[in-house]
């Protein structure tokens, strides 16, 4: 155990003297990780109450989830909303990011700030405001309304990712392409886009997740047959603790983690290019 006596930092404090610090950090880390993952094993518990560790292992809660038309409908809605949000937010956000980046107009800065506002305004406000308007235009409880609202939330994220990629891209290449005979559009698609594609793909994945995980807006704006998975989960949580939710949570963790690992892989690949 003589590593305890070795100096841990330039100030010559030893590991042994800082043991309490390491313990505290480990505790905090456990505090962060354990509750996040504990749902997974608990979702396989066979009894009425969720146990850890499960006395008997069973797939009953998964069966309950897949057998329920309400949950399946909600899941389908969430995936649809996620996919459509991705399809809407990614091109719109990429176009906006590019246009504002190359624009020399003073308005570009103003527009940029306006586009960031969905992140700044507390989402409860956005939710009730959108709900209010949707009631008037009869978009409440519709998939279209939901997708529009989710896309608005995802847009700033797409813009930030694409803008960041454009900043590290050598714009001279576009100039060269144009001097060689490419119009601005041709230059963008043949030279710029291939080189920022990782940021675009990453932001597409992020858009999907933003929509899929979104709770508050979906609470107010989706409903009936277009209720999202998150909305149903939230309502179920407030009323009673249905163990089926543990199974759903596990599946959500799997979906989220997979997509995030993918987006990180793309991000790293883009960085190594």
């Amino acid at each position: 155990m003589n590593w305890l006596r070795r100096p841990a930092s330039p100030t010559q404090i030893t590991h042994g003297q800082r043991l309490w610090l390491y313990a505290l950090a480990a505790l905090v880390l456990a505090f962060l990780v354990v509750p996040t993952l504990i749902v997974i094993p608990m979702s396989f518990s066979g009894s009425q109450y969720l146990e850890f560790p499960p006395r008997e292992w069973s797939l009953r809660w998964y069966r309950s989830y897949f057998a329920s038309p309400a949950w399946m409908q909600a899941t389908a809605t969430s995936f649809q909303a996620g996919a459509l949000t991705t399809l809407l937010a990614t091109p719109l956000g990429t176009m906006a990011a590019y246009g504002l980046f190359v624009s020399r107009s003073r308005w570009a800065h103003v527009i940029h700030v306006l586009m960031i506002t969905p992140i700044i305004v507390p989402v409860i406000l956005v939710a009730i405001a959108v709900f209010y308007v949707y009631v008037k235009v009869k978009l409440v409880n519709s998939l279209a309304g939901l997708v529009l609202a989710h896309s608005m939330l995802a847009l700033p994220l797409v813009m930030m990712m694409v803008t960041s990629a454009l900043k590290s891209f050598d714009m001279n290449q576009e100039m060269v392409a144009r001097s060689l005979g490419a119009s601005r559009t041709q230059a963008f698609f043949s030279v710029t886009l291939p080189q920022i594609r990782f940021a675009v793909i990453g932001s597409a994945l992020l858009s999907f997740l933003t929509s899929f995980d979104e709770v508050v807006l979906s609470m107010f704006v989706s409903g009936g047959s277009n209720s999202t998975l998150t909305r149903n989960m939230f309502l179920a949580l407030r009323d009673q603790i249905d163990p089926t939710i543990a199974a759903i949570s596990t599946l959500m963790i799997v979906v989220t983690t997979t997509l995030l690992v993918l987006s990180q892989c793309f991000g790293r690949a883009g960085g190594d290019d």
Partner: protein
Amino acid sequence: MDPRSAVPIAVRGLRKTYGPVRALDDVDLDVRSGEFLTLLGPSGSGKTTLLMVLAGFIRPDQGSLKFGAEEVIRLAPHKRDIGMVFQNYALFPHMDVAANVAYPLKLRGVRAPEAARRVEAVLQTVQLAGYGARRVDQLSGGQRQRVALARAIVFEPRIVLMDEPLSALDKQLREHMQIELRQLHNQLGTTTIYVTHDQREALTMSDRIAVINGGRIMQLDTPQAIYERPANRFVAEFIGESTLLKVTIAGDRCECAGQVLRVAQARAAPGSAVLMLRPERLRILGATEAGTAPESGQNWLQAQVTNVVYQGDSVLVQARLADGSSVNARGVAGRDTLAALPQPGQPVHFGFSVADTVVLADGA
């Protein structure tokens, strides 16, 4: 390239202001068909701005630009049929060398087999035959520059623009490429505009040089004329080394620090002026020669040596006149010269030809 398809360029009244700054101050310029013209000037002089206006990436406030008979000032860059080479090459990293060079051909709808043939031909011209499959990051700086060049000429543009293409290369490679570029130009005959801040490069490569400062062309002439007969003080100081002396001039004689000199350009109205002398045109007179009067066509100038600097291939003798103005003389460091060098503090006599004097306007 068919020399017949090279075009002249006519610039009239080009103006570009950024706030209070005049980046281009009503510039007029005529470039001859097939000529290699260099825009030479310090940074911020407007030379790159002018090039960018020619390319179409900077829109001037006003002016006219003609390639041959065609007015192009409002034409988008991709329609101007120009080839451009940038300082940082800007090769497309997601394509290999052949794809890079074939890019402009693809844009023009050239079919793949024909394009491949032309790509290989131009790669051979820039001495990179067979490099088509290489990736951009596998190339050295000099090779990348040649790929950029190949890409810019493969579609036989009527004009080639180059923005300090060699400044990122090391000295030896740069000097080698200067000669290569010039030979390539001779071979292709395309009208070429070349931007640089390196006067040596300009003097080496150009048919004519346009010296630019403050958004204005200070002088447009052949390299020899620019060097030997600068039109104003800026050009005299920017190109080569120079000694500038304040003189009062009357007719073909001028007076400086109490000494009388004859000049090549006579002035009708007497007044003050600036006399320019190139250090390498001054020679140090031996004692006997200094004692006799100068022959016609020669000037003697007496000064006191302040410093002698040995610089390997040449020696610089710095001296001062009676009125405090400095005079520099440079001589090849041959054995005899080195043996007869004056010492600081000693008087020295310089001799130079009247034909080597240049009179410039005072304050120009």
